């Protein structure tokens, strides 16, 4: 294992410390228990947005803390949900009196830890709502399973719910808009290589030189199935088709197309995937009204990507376009 780290157990703390120094104009880092808030938190009268989860998905979530997006991020150890004792003070710190929305990716650990923190915060008088993100079509959704995972759609939920909060929407409205994004977004991913979790020291799964994993998540878990390597267009079709089908999107609709890198794939390759995805959407009469391409939610240095499609309406478009000023996403100011 070759990594630019010191002690594997210090990875998250040291990284977040550096992050806080590099972006001191945007964020404040509270070291113990560890969480990150926007510099001007709490914003009086604004609904606060808190997200978090295991580390290793950078820039998610800390990179999205700032004006127009998250008020706080709570990073756990690598691929391990943070604990209530960090989520709680983060929640309290960003309550501007209008309540707090938690954006939680649907993993058992995240759900349980955020749930506990929410209860504790409510007990301290803060109104808390939860948006559960579960956009991964690789996983069958069923009452008898842990349900679909939250993956790249999370970034879009955070941006759009963040814009709603920033324009002054109340707690229920922000929650409803976040849930609307979640209902209209689907993703699917592929891995060309595994990643190495620092404390584990070996690849999260073993792939042969000519194999790829279809339907991977963002934690180095193996995917749904393994196939021989294909070209970019073929892989793109394999990811995009189930996304479009699950979303039931029709000719004439407008979408946001998001090609996300898993951390170790060159940007040039993401654009090759984007090109094919845009081609397929055009052929189906679906109009790509907004785009996002890059490493926004990663699995350490995993090679691969995911494709996310969000069905847009005019309000979601407006909220997407609204100004945002964070370390990893910025426009309009």
């Amino acid at each position, binding site marked *: 294992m070759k990594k630019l780290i010191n002690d594997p*157990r210090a990875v998250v703390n040291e990284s977040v410390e550096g992050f806080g120094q590099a972006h001191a104009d945007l964020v404040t880092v509270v070291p113990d*228990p560890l969480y990150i808030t926007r510099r001007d938190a709490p914003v009086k009268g604004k609904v606060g947005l808190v997200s978090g989860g*295991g580390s290793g998905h950078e820039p998610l979530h800390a990179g999205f803390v700032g004006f127009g997006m998250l008020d706080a991020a709570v990073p*756990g*150890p*690598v*691929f*391990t*949900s*943070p*604990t*209530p*004792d960090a989520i709680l003070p983060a929640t309290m710190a960003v309550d501007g009196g209008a309540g707090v929305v938690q954006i939680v990716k649907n*993993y*058992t*650990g995240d759900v*349980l*830890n955020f*749930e*506990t923190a929410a209860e504790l915060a409510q007990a301290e008088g803060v109104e808390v709502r939860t948006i559960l993100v579960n956009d991964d079509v*690789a*996983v*069958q959704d069923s009452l*008898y*399973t*842990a349900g679909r*995972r939250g993956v790249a759609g999370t970034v879009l939920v955070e941006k759009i719910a963040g814009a709603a909060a920033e324009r002054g929407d109340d707690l229920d409205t922000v929650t409803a808009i976040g849930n609307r994004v979640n209902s209209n977004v689907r993703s699917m991913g592929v891995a060309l290589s595994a990643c190495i*979790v620092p*404390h*584990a020291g*070996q690849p*999260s*799964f073993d792939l042969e030189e000519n194999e790829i994993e279809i339907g991977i*998540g963002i*934690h*180095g*878990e*193996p995917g*749904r*199935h393994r196939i021989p390597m294909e070209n970019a267009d073929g892989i793109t079709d394999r990811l995009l088709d189930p996304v479009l089908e699950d979303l039931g999107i029709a000719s004439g609709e407008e979408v946001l197309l998001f090609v996300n890198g898993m951390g170790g794939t060159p940007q040039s390759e993401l654009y090759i995937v984007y090109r094919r995805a845009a081609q397929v959407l055009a052929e189906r009469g679906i109009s790509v009204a907004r785009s996002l391409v890059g490493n926004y939610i990663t699995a350490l240095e995993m090679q691969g990507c995911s494709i996310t499609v969000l069905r847009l309406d005019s309000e979601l478009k407006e909220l997407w376009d609204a100004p945002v000023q964070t370390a990893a996403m910025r426009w309009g100011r």
Partner: protein
Amino acid sequence: MGLDTAWAVAFLHAAALSMAEHRDELIALDRAIGDSDHGENMDRGFEAVVAKLGDTPPESPAAALKLTAMVLMSKVGGAAGPLYGTAFLRAATALGETADVGPDVLVSALQAALDGVVARGKAEAGDKTMVDAWIPAVAAARDAATAGEPAAAVLAAAASAAAAGAAATEPMLARKGRASYLGERSVGHRDPGAQSSALLLLAAAQAASQQDSHAGSPESPR
């Protein structure tokens, strides 16, 4: 002679040792059907439990378990943190004020732990989770207590049933937790949380059997 505070402390020390020793094994199990962190999470958690025990020695078995619950909830994270946290918390509540845990109270505490895990995680028997270690463990404990066995033997019965339960998760198809994302591919691997549960119950049983062997001798610490 039931189980006392010294037993609880000895159990937690043994648990920490066991988690450190089996850290890589639990990581390997989690690597196959999860995200490679279970061993690290449990090791980090019980290391913190031992540190906390040193800072603030507990005054009753329940206090020891409650302290453990709080530390695990704030140090483990992931799915295992809240689940084990709840299990220890509920067990502590079931023990109440008693300084001397007899077989029946012990069984209620184990049952409470299991109920806590199920309440939080909603897993059923056969879902390939730690619940599949706890269900047979509680049943075996109850049988032993009913048969009039002392607390140490009750724990020993629970531990060996949990070990069998953990092994029995191998052919199961996961329906809860991270392994469920794998669908059919989860079959053929042992559930890491079931394995850590068996290890924890084994540590509890070993601490009890040591207490027993000391109990007879005059230089016993209590």
